[in-house]
């Protein structure tokens, strides 16, 4: 095999044939083309004319070149050129296929499987033993089974069972298994890699190299899998971190936010600039929509890493603040501070109670200034019972009137002032939060102090109801379960009048915890979380398999996705916790530098392309072209007019290739020229062969009579089809109406109408006079009606006895055709329209039958009942008709001739 870059020749010795090309060149040059044969009468004049040059005629250069190309193509085809020739597996001994079947393989799984199948086929052809190592641990956390040497058929079955798994592979453990197998011979090793480092790639490659020659197959660099990691759940927008292993090129990908049922809720394109490994993508969405998002996925990438599951912690709850829209002094209003504190992590609405509750909110914040009517209270109580959360803030109003039902605890009347001009006390600081408080874990800034608060009547359960205390132990935040909801009271104001808590970051955090309580998840869950739905390797959610383990109580935050805990939703269907793959992925980077001697290949690059069939096809086409050219040079192509030049040749060639419409257009032009250059009688093709033949023969006979008797010089009749042909060239159309005539298409109707409007005349021959009865007349009428549907024709009248048609050439009284009788129907004569010439003439006497003659002028059909005299009259009618079509109302002046003559005589 001769190899030139990516192209190789399977039979390179045949290329020696190219050396014969110069000889062929010479032979082709000296062999003249076969002469054209032309019949020519004036040969005698040429006999002695010796051509001045005696050199033989040469084949034209372009033809020689064409033939040289032809020969070259044939030689090249025989040498069988191959693109990307398949490298054979070298040597003997077993073949090891190491397959990365971790999450990263999913993106190129089809290519990888195809490559693996090809390799197994190849190994099978060479009858080699196969070792198939998959690097990812099997589900459920059990150890991978030990390796063995497989027959190709078993290997194929094993390969068919491979699926990408939704966790990272463990190549170290795979290498250990391979080493435990203890291959006796040096093995050929092919590593079908997912292209990711994973931290163990270098060691794995080094370990493989020790076992034998290694080939690494993988996808291209910028086609490495991408990873979606959780970003800040509390951001204004829905966010996700897009990570990629190969940051060299800029890349644009599309994120899809999907609902619980897989419905697409939002799409957003994200561009990662070159050199940047990750970017936080923002997907702005309305809150209601955002709360329905169950997962985010990268479009067109099916892998567990490209799917990010979202749980309750991601949802933004709407919070309503009961306040008046008073913007005069915003800094004195508690609502202003609440708005600022709530807006970073929730959607804030402001309004009166009724409006807010109607709009659907999770938390209702009541600053002290909010005046509540009785109706409001009832509404709030009802809403609380159904699961709402109310956060109240104390203040002068509450302190003055503490006997409110909407309070978690009983309050003492009045308030307590800490510090002040007349007191030794300092404003109080906050005590650290208790472990069972929703606020546990929050750091308390030193400078947060409370100078006034409302006080609680001590009760037994006060400690349980207290979420936050001051340093002296008095409750600062108390809360009570109320129905299904929570009622929370902050014992100081929402504005900075009583405490600077309202201006601190702690307020934000505390409100966030309170809002989180409204979501039903307060702090860490202490229940074990069974798997609900888990992802497969392609990032699709399925019911959890039996191998997925339950996350034990309190371990949710520390659990990392893996064989035991596949990524997915855990918990209960109502309160789900998402376990994502991204934290489990280590060393998310492309393969590191591999040891020397490791070959790298692409999955797809190995497709071998054989050029022989296309080359042979080209050679065949060239041969055909050469054949046609040869015929043309000898003048054996009769239909091509060379005076039309290259255009005709191009048209002929084009017609061969694609049935060109150009050729038809040229044909149309020819028909138009033929129709316009002489006067032709014309008939409409009905598609019934007998009728068409009769029409044609009839018009031939009529044309003969016209030429013989009149000044009309009628050429051979032409046939037209109103669906396709132009009618404007013909003054008169003979239109036989037959059974089963199809209605005209709208284009044809428009064409016929245009023809009639511009002065054309149509003789409709219903051909029904043979057996005249009511039934046949009705049938013919129906046919005619169907045919003329869409044409604008005025009501027809029987031909009046003084009509021009009766005397345009001959004087006629009746108008027989093959049959005699019946009426001839015309448009009523109205001088204003078309000079009083009827554009439609309808009758049923089958005139064409009477006119028809064969080539020798012998009549074809018998004429009944009148015999030959009737045929003569029929011819006279034909002549009159043509004269009528050509001269119009010219003869109508003759109406007045008798009167004029009479007057002249007197």
């Amino acid at each position, binding site marked *: 095999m001769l190899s030139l870059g990516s192209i190789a020749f399977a039979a390179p010795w045949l290329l020696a044939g190219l050396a014969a090309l110069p000889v062929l060149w010479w032979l082709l040059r000296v062999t003249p083309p076969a002469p*054209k*044969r032309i019949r020519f*009468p004036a040969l005698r004049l*040429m006999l002695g004319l010796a051509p001045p040059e005696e050199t033989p005629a040469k084949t034209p250069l372009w033809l020689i070149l064409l033939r040289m190309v032809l020969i070259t193509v044939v030689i090249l085809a025989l040498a069988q050129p191959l693109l990307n020739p398949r490298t054979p597996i070298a040597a003997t001994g077993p073949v090891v296929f190491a397959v990365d079947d971790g999450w990263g393989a999913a993106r190129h799984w089809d290519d990888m499987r195809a490559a693996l199948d090809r390799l197994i086929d190849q190994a099978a052809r060479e009858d080699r033993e196969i070792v198939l190592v998959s690097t990812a641990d099997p589900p459920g956390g059990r150890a991978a089974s030990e390796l063995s040497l497989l027959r190709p058929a078993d290997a194929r079955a094993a390969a068919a069972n491979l699926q990408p798994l939704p966790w990272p592979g463990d190549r170290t453990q795979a290498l250990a298994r391979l080493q435990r197998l203890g291959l006796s011979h040096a093995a050929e090793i092919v590593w079908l890699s997912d292209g990711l480092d994973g931290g163990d790639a270098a060691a794995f490659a080094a370990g493989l190299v020790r076992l034998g020659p290694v080939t690494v197959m993988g996808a291209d660099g910028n086609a490495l899998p991408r990873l979606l990691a959780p970003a800040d759940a509390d951001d204004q927008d829905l966010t996700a971190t897009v990570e990629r292993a190969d940051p060299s090129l800029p890349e644009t990908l599309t994120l899809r936010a999907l609902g619980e049922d897989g419905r697409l809720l939002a799409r957003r394109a994200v561009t990662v600039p070159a050199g940047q490994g990750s970017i936080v993508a923002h997907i702005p969405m309305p809150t209601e929509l955002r709360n329905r998002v169950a997962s985010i996925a990268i479009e067109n990438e099916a892998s567990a890493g490209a799917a990010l599951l979202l749980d309750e912690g991601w949802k933004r709850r709407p919070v309503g603040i009961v306040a008046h829209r008073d913007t005069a002094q915003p800094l004195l209003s508690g609502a202003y501070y609440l708005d600022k504190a709530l807006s970073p992590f929730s959607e804030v609405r402001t309004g009166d109670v009724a409006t807010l509750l109607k709009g659907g909110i999770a938390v209702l914040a009541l600053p002290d200034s909010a005046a509540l009517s009785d109706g409001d209270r009832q509404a709030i109580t009802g809403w609380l019972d159904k699961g709402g959360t109310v956060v109240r803030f104390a203040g002068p109003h509450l302190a003055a009137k503490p006997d409110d039902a909407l309070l978690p605890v009983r309050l003492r009347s009045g308030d307590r002032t800490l510090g002040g001009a007349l007191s030794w006390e300092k404003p109080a600081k906050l005590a650290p939060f208790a472990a069972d408080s929703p606020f546990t874990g929050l750091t308390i800034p030193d400078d947060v102090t409370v100078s006034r608060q409302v006080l609680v009547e001590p009760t037994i359960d006060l400690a349980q109801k207290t979420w936050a205390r001051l340093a002296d132990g008095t409750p600062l935040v108390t809360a009570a379960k109320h129905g299904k909801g929570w009622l929370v009271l902050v014992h100081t104001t929402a504005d900075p009048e009583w405490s600077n808590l309202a201006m601190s970051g702690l307020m934000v955090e505390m409100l966030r915890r309170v809002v989180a309580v409204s979501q039903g998840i307060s702090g860490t869950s202490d229940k074990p979380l069974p798997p609900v739905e888990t992802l497969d390797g392609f990032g699709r959610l399925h019911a959890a398999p039996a191998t997925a383990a339950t996350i034990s109580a309190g371990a949710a935050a520390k659990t990392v996705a893996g064989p035991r805990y596949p990524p997915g939703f855990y918990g209960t269907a109502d309160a789900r916790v998402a376990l994502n793959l991204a934290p489990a992925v280590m060393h998310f980077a492309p393969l590191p530098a591999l040891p020397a001697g490791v070959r790298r290949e692409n999955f797809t690059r190995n497709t071998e392309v054989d050029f022989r069939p296309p080359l042979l096809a080209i050679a065949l086409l060239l041969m055909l072209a050469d054949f046609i050219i040869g015929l043309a*040079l000898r003048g054996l192509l009769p239909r091509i007019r060379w005076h039309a030049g290259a255009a005709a040749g191009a048209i002929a060639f084009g017609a061969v290739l694609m049935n060109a419409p150009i050729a038809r257009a040229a044909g149309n032009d020819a028909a138009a020229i033929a129709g316009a250059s002489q006067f032709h009688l014309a008939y409409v093709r009905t598609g019934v062969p007998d009728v068409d033949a009769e029409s044609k023969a009839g018009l031939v006979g009529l044309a003969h009579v016209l030429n013989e008797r009149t000044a009309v010089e009628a050429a051979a009749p032409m046939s037209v089809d109103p669906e396709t042909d132009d009618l404007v060239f013909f003054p008169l159309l003979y239109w036989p109406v037959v059974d089963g005539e199809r209605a005209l298409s709208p284009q044809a109707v428009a064409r016929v109408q245009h023809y009639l409007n511009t002065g054309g005349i149509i003789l409709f021959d219903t051909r029904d006079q043979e057996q005249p009865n009511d039934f046949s007349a009705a049938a013919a009428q129906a046919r005619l009606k169907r045919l003329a549907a869409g044409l604008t024709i005025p009501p027809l009248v029987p031909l009046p006895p003084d009509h021009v048609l009766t005397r345009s050439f001959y004087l006629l009284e009746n108008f027989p055709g093959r049959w005699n009788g019946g009426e001839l129907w015309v448009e009523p004569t109205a001088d204003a329209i078309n000079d009083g010439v009827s554009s439609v003439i309808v009758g049923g006497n089958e005139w064409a039958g009477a006119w028809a003659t064969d080539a020798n002028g012998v009549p074809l059909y018998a004429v009944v009942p009148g015999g030959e005299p009737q045929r003569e009259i029929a011819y006279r009618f034909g002549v009159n008709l043509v004269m009528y079509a050509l001269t119009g109302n010219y003869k109508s002046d003759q109406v007045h001739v008798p009167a004029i003559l009479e007057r002249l005589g007197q």
Partner: protein
Amino acid sequence: MAGPALRHRAEAASLALPPLLIAAERVAAAVVQGTHGRRRTGQGETFWQFRQYEPGDPVTRIDWRETAKTQHVYVRETEWEAAQSVYLWRDGSGSMDYASDANLPTKRERADLLTLALASLLVRGGERVTLMGSGLAPVYGRAALDRLALLLSRGATASDLPAYEKLPRHGQVIWIGDLLAPLEATATLVLRYADAGLKGHLLQVLDPAEESLPFAGRVRFEGLEDENSLLISRVESIRTGYAERLQRHRDGLAALTRGVGWTFATHRTDQSPQHALLGLYQILAER
């Protein structure tokens, strides 16, 4: 051979004639307008003028009715209507079956048309016409046309020159054909007829391709009669030589006819037949 079958064939043949006859009549009608009669006194039936009796006029020529009206004696003169015998011939050899383009008539079709049209004109003028080589005596009247048409449709003759036959003096011969026969053969025949006292007119009908030789490249020319083929390696190179030779041939024919008082004209099939016919007719009318 059954009689009816033969008759049927004959009828079919005669039925096919009218188109040619009609075409010829049409061509002739276009020519005849404006060229009336002989316009001189002579033997004939048509009245020409009254003239006063002069001594020597035969008494039988005196028109008594006119004489009775006036003081003088009048003689009635008729228009000269000397009927001539015209012997037509058209080349029916194989070389005439040629048209270089499908849109052109073959040389034979054109020659037939011209012959018949000329015959029609002559018959209208009261001449007697016949076809040379047919053995038919010159005849009057429109019936002659049908017969001529029939004879013409009989088709091919082998020779490209008329055979010599003994014709009466003062007759006219008209030859229509490509006249490509060797000049010597033509000259012999023309001189023989001229010696016999006949006037003649030659019309050479050629296809445009025969004048311009529009072919190119390597061509094997094949004759239409039984001739050998001729291979020309580059037709372009002999075009000038061919044109010269054709011109020389025509010059030879013209010189030959001039020498004996005959006339020679050329006609190309892409020209209008009326044109050639008018030329022929005027030459005949002048005599």
